[in-house]
C-alpha cells in the first residue's frame, strides 16, 4: 500500500475507510465545529429552517464571540444575544463570550483542539489548528449547520504539498516571515484545495505559538488546510491546556505522496512584508523603507500570542511610538492579556503610546476599533491586506511580523527590525 499523508489518514479514519485517495469525496464524521459571531447567526438561521432543528452532538460545538466585541452597534448586540439564546436552547455549554479572545486562540487554549481530529470551523482561518496535527478546515455557515445536524460533512480528500524548511531563523526573523516567504513563492492560489504540510528542523525549532502563525496563513495560498506533525512541544501545550490523553498522534508515512514539494533554508530569510493588495506580494522590509505609516496593528489570530507580545515589547521598551502613528495592541485572548499584564508587557505598550484593546478580532476585517481612512497606511501583524479589508478601499495594509510592526511604529515608516533592535 502506498504511503499516506497525515491529511489522508485523518480523513480515512473520520470516514470509516481503510484508506482514501486524493480526489475522493468522503462523508466524514466531524469531531469539532466552531462558529463565531459573524458566521454563527447564519448557521442558527440555517438550522432553524429545518423542520426539526437539532444538533446531533451539542458537546462538539464551540461558539466564540470575537469579531464585533464588545458590540459596536445594535445589530452586533442582537447577533450576540441570538447566539447566547441559541446555546441555551440547544444545550451548547461551550460559548465564549465578549472578551475571551479570538476563536483560533481560544479553542486550543481551552483544550478543545486535539491531534488527529477533524475540525470544521465557520471561519477561513480554522486551518490554524493544523499546528496541532488536526485536520482543520474553514467552511461556511450552512456547512457548519449541516455538520451540526448530521454530525457529518462531505469533503474532498486533498492532494498534499510538502514545505520542508531546513536551517535556523536569524535574529528578529520570525515564523511570520517564514510563511510570508512561502506565500511569495507559492502565490495566492498555488496551493488551491491542497493540504500543506510543514516539516523540517526550522519548524520543529518553533514554539507552538510560532507554528500557529504558519498554519493560520495556509488559506492565503488557497489551501484547504495547513498541517504539522505533533511533537513533544505539542504534547506540552496540550497538557497545559488540560487535554487528557484520548487522542492519536498522526504522522505522515515516509513514502507518502506529495503533489508538490518546496524546500528552503530558514537561515536565508530576512524580515518580509506583504504589500497591498495581496498577501503574496512579498518584499524585504528593507526595500519598503520609504513607505510612511499612519497605524501599526499588533493583533489577530495570526500574531497576538504571548511570544508575539514579548517580541514587540522588547523592541518598544523605554521608547515612544513615533508622533502621528497610532499603535493598537490586541492580545489574542484574555489568558494572554493576563500573562502580558503579569510580565509587564502591557505597561511597556501603554508607556510607548500604544492603545491596548480588548481581546478579539479588532479592526482586522474592517469591523471596528481602528478602521482606516482614505489614503491611510497600516502595518499589521494580521493575515489579509485586500483592498478595503480594514476600512476605506483607498487605505493600504502591509502585513509583517510583530518585530517589524513594532520597529515601524517607532520610526513611522516600514522598518527592518534589525535596524532598531
Amino acid at each position, binding site marked *: 500500500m502506498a504511503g499516506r499523508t497525515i491529511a489522508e489518514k485523518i480523513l480515512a479514519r473520520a470516514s470509516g475507510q481503510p484508506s482514501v485517495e486524493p480526489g475522493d*469525496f468522503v462523508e466524514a464524521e466531524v469531531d469539532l465545529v466552531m462558529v463565531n459571531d459573524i*458566521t454563527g447567526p447564519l448557521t442558527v438561521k440555517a438550522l432553524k429552517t429545518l423542520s426539526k432543528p437539532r444538533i446531533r452532538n451539542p458537546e462538539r460545538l464551540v461558539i466564540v464571540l470575537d469579531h464585533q466585541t464588545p458590540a459596536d452597534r445594535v445589530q452586533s448586540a442582537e447577533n450576540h444575544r441570538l447566539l447566547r439564546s441559541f446555546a441555551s436552547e440547544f444545550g451548547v455549554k461551550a460559548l465564549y463570550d465578549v472578551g475571551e479572545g479570538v476563536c483560533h486562540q481560544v479553542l486550543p487554549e481551552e483544550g478543545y483542539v486535539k491531534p488527529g481530529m477533524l475540525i470544521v470551523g465557520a471561519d477561513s482561518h480554522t486551518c490554524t489548528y493544523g499546528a496541532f496535527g488536526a485536520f482543520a478546515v474553514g467552511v461556511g455557515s450552512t456547512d457548519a449547520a449541516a455538520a451540526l445536524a448530521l454530525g457529518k460533512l462531505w469533503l474532498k480528500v486533498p492532494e498534499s504539498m510538502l514545505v520542508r524548511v531546513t536551517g535556523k531563523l536569524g535574529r528578529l526573523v520570525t515564523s511570520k516571515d517564514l510563511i510570508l516567504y512561502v506565500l511569495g513563492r507559492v502565490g495566492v492560489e498555488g496551493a488551491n484545495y491542497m493540504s500543506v504540510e510543514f516539516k523540517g528542523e526550522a519548524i520543529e525549532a518553533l514554539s507552538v505559538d510560532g507554528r500557529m502563525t504558519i498554519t493560520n496563513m495556509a488559506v492565503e495560498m488557497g489551501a484547504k488546510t495547513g498541517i504539522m506533525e505533533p511533537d513533544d512541544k505539542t504534547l506540552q501545550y496540550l497538557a497545559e491546556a488540560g487535554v487528557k490523553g484520548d487522542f492519536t498522534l498522526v504522522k505522515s508515512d515516509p513514502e507518502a505522496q506529495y503533489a508538490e514539494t518546496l524546500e528552503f533554508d530558514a537561515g536565508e530569510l530576512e524580515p518580509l512584508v506583504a504589500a497591498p493588495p*495581496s498577501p503574496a506580494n512579498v518584499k524585504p522590509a528593507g526595500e519598503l523603507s520609504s513607505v510612511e505609516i499612519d497605524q501599526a496593528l499588533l493583533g489577530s489570530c495570526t500574531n497576538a500570542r504571548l511570544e508575539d507580545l514579548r517580541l514587540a515589547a522588547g523592541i518598544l521598551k523605554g521608547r515612544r511610538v513615533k508622533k502621528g502613528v497610532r499603535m493598537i495592541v490586541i492580545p489574542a485572548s484574555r489568558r494572554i492579556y493576563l500573562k502580558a499584564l503579569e510580565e509587564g508587557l502591557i505597561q511597556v505598550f501603554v508607556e510607548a503610546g500604544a492603545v491596548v484593546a480588548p481581546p478579539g478580532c479588532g479592526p482586522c476585517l474592517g469591523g471596528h476599533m481602528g478602521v482606516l481612512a482614505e489614503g491611510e497606511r497600516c502595518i499589521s501583524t494580521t493575515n489579509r491586506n485586500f483592498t478595503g479589508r480594514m476600512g476605506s*478601499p483607498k487605505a493600504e495594509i502591509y502585513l509583517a511580523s510583530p518585530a517589524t510592526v513594532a520597529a515601524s511604529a517607532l520610526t513611522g515608516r516600514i522598518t527592518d527590525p534589525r535596524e532598531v533592535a
Partner: protein
Amino acid sequence: MIFEGKALKCGDNVDTDAIIPGRYLVSTRPEELAAHALEGLDPELPAKLRDFEILVAGRNFGCGSSREHAVLALKHAGVKCVVAESFARIFFRNSVNLGLPALECGGISSRTMEGDRLRINLREGLVENLSQGFTLKAKPLPGFLLKILELGGLLAYVEERLGGEG
C-alpha cells in the same frame, strides 16, 4: 438545470471582502447584503449588477474569508450562476450549499465580453455564448453536488437525510 442571461465580468482573485465588505457582515438579511454586492470592487457595481444574471470571473474567485454573506449578496442581487476560470474552495462550497451554481470553465473569462448572452446547461456542463456563437465545456460537477443544487441547497439535502432517519 438551464440558466440564460447577460454576463457581468470581473477579474482574477476577487476576494470576499470585495464581494461584501466586512462592515456589512453584522447583517444576515439577504436584501441588505445584496444592496452592497461587489461594492468592494466598485461602488457603482451593486446598482449595475441588477441588469445582469450571470457573473463571469477570472481565477480564484471568492478567495479569502469564509463569509457566506458573499453568496447571499450575489444571489439576492439576481445572479443565477457564477462561471469562473477557477474558484477558491470555501466560496465554491458556500455557493453550491446555498443553491447558486458555480461552474469552473477554462477560457470563459478571456472569450466573453461584458453583456454577452450566455446559456448554461449545468447537467451537461456546457457554457454557450449566444452572442458570439461558441460553446465551452465546463468542469463537470460531481453527481451529489448536482443533486444538492437541484434540491436548492445543502439544507434541503440535510432535510432529506434527516427525514430518512425518521
